[in-house]
């Protein structure tokens, strides 16, 4: 196991009280595994991603633990977390287009970043990796503004993985990209894993079809909790949680036509996470809901590697 997350709770502080954005999530990640973290806005996937590397100012670690390669990460302590960042856990951010200092040449920025972490820059290795993502060596002598969007994205991918982290978090990195670029990025990420640049990866996205192209395991979240986690093919073809089922069946695919097969969405909206009611958070929208759903369904491994948090599935 590379990563073990146990009952992790991270809340957002707001004026009206704490938003329970991530409320008791547990899962593990094996060596070489790519986990696709899927769900809709507000489901807690981004909070989970941030919790694994750097909480932002308004987030607080309320409970639970994160263990990486056998060590417990001090995720609530920004300073103590620093030594783990970049070396053990790294991040490809959503904002790759503006992630690099605009007034530094890229090569110099990389060197200074590495020096600040007391790491030596292995120029041959860097060149090798640039070549892998089809960037010319001379990008290192350029300013970010001189690169196109796709080039910046690839450069950031190279920087983030330069120290071969155990865990890489990719947070919605494809949502602003065109389909052809999406494919290239996903293929590159897969290559990074296959070459051992990263041991394991959490790929966060709202796009299940895309996750399925890359992930070994897909974890679907709903309203701050885990709904279902299973091998990618199982989630897509035989989901057990009603939310996953409805979600999958609402996705149009090329070939599905309105005139032939009318898809339907899920009525209603996710609940507010400021004082959420007890019990299953999906029950208001769930067609299968019954009395028992007033109690919170625990995540249960219904078959090997297939975890579902639903009374009906167990």
């Amino acid at each position: 196991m590379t990563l073990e997350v146990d009952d992790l709770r991270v809340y957002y502080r707001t004026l009206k009280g704490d938003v329970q954005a991530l409320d008791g999530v547990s899962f593990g990640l094996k060596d070489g595994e790519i986990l696709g973290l899927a769900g809709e806005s507000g489901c807690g996937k981004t909070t989970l991603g941030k919790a694994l590397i750097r909480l932002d100012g308004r987030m607080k670690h309320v409970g639970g633990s994160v263990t990486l390669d056998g060590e417990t990460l001090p995720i609530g302590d920004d300073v103590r977390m620093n030594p783990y960042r970049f070396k053990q856990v790294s991040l490809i951010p959503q904002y790759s287009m503006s992630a690099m200092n605009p007034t530094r040449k890229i090569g110099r920025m990389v060197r200074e970043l590495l020096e600040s972490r007391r790491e030596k820059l292995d120029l041959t290795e860097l060149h090798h990796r640039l070549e892998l993502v089809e960037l010319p060596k001379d990008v290192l002598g350029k300013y970010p503004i001189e690169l196109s969007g796709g080039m910046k994205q690839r450069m950031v991918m190279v920087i983030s993985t330069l120290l071969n982290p155990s865990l890489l978090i990719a947070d919605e990195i494809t949502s602003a990209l065109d389909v052809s670029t999406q494919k290239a990025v996903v293929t590159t990420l897969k290559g990074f894993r296959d070459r051992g640049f990263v041991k394991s990866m959490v790929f966060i996205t709202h796009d299940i079809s895309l996750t399925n192209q890359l992930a070994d395991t897909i974890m679907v979240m709903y309203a701050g909790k885990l709904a279902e986690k299973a091998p990618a093919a199982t989630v897509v073809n035989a989901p057990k949680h009603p939310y996953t089922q409805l979600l999958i069946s609402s996705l149009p695919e090329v070939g599905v036509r309105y005139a032939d097969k009318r898809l339907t969405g899920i009525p209603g909206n996710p609940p507010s996470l400021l004082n959420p009611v007890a019990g299953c958070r999906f029950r208001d929208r769930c067609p299968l809901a019954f009395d028992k759903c007033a109690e919170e369904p625990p995540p249960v491994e219904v078959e090997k590697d297939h975890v579902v948090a639903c009374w009906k599935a167990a």
Partner: protein
Amino acid sequence: MLKLDGVTKVYRIGAFGGQTMTAVDEAGFEIKPGEVVSLIGESGSGKSTIGKMVLRLLSPTAGTISIDGHDIKKMGKRDYYRKVQGVFQDPFSSYNPVFKADRVFGMIREVYFKGVPDKEWTAKIEAALDAVRLSPGAVLNKFPHQLSGGQLQRLLIARALLLDIEYLVADEIISMLDASTRIDVLNLLADLKLRGLGVLFITHDLALGNYISDRTVVLHKGRIVEYGPTDAVFEQPEHAYTRKLLASVPQLHTKWEDA
């Protein structure tokens, strides 16, 4: 019939317009009443520029856009907007955050239905909301941030329905919505065509275009590379670009490696 003929848009860049950039290059296609035409392209393809030209938010550098043979440039803007309306991509940007969401209705009333008595107006709004399956109590008298993206986009469709529109430009209207709610908005759009509306559905998502439209226009770098019935475009794409695009779409049940 809404018809584009040789429509071109050239932008001037730089302070004194030293350089030019052709965003749309001689685009020509038509939308008939009661059909959905999807305009598919990646970023920078010029698809939104076409939408804006049809909505007269931009004027073409060359070419004409006409409705039933009348050049839209020669129509008064108010009369034109009675017939053609639009809904945009970002539901939160479509509403002025300092005002209540139903102000979008008020604006229509102020300009087009000044003399209409309150009672009649309320009935009209209720009918429009009913058509987009919203209940008045849930959405009226609320600020935009109190509503969900899906509700906001439906409100905008309802707003368009207050007028006797013949054509609707829907520019990426569901791309910012969550997966579980977006399909219902899309279905709504498809239902509009049963009312005899012509819809220009602008999207980067091929699956959505394929799902909803009768005919498809594929745009690449400002040029139309493929145009035809949706079945034909998706099943026997002729242009290399369309084929490449189709091959890049992440499919739920097929992996890229297997395709």
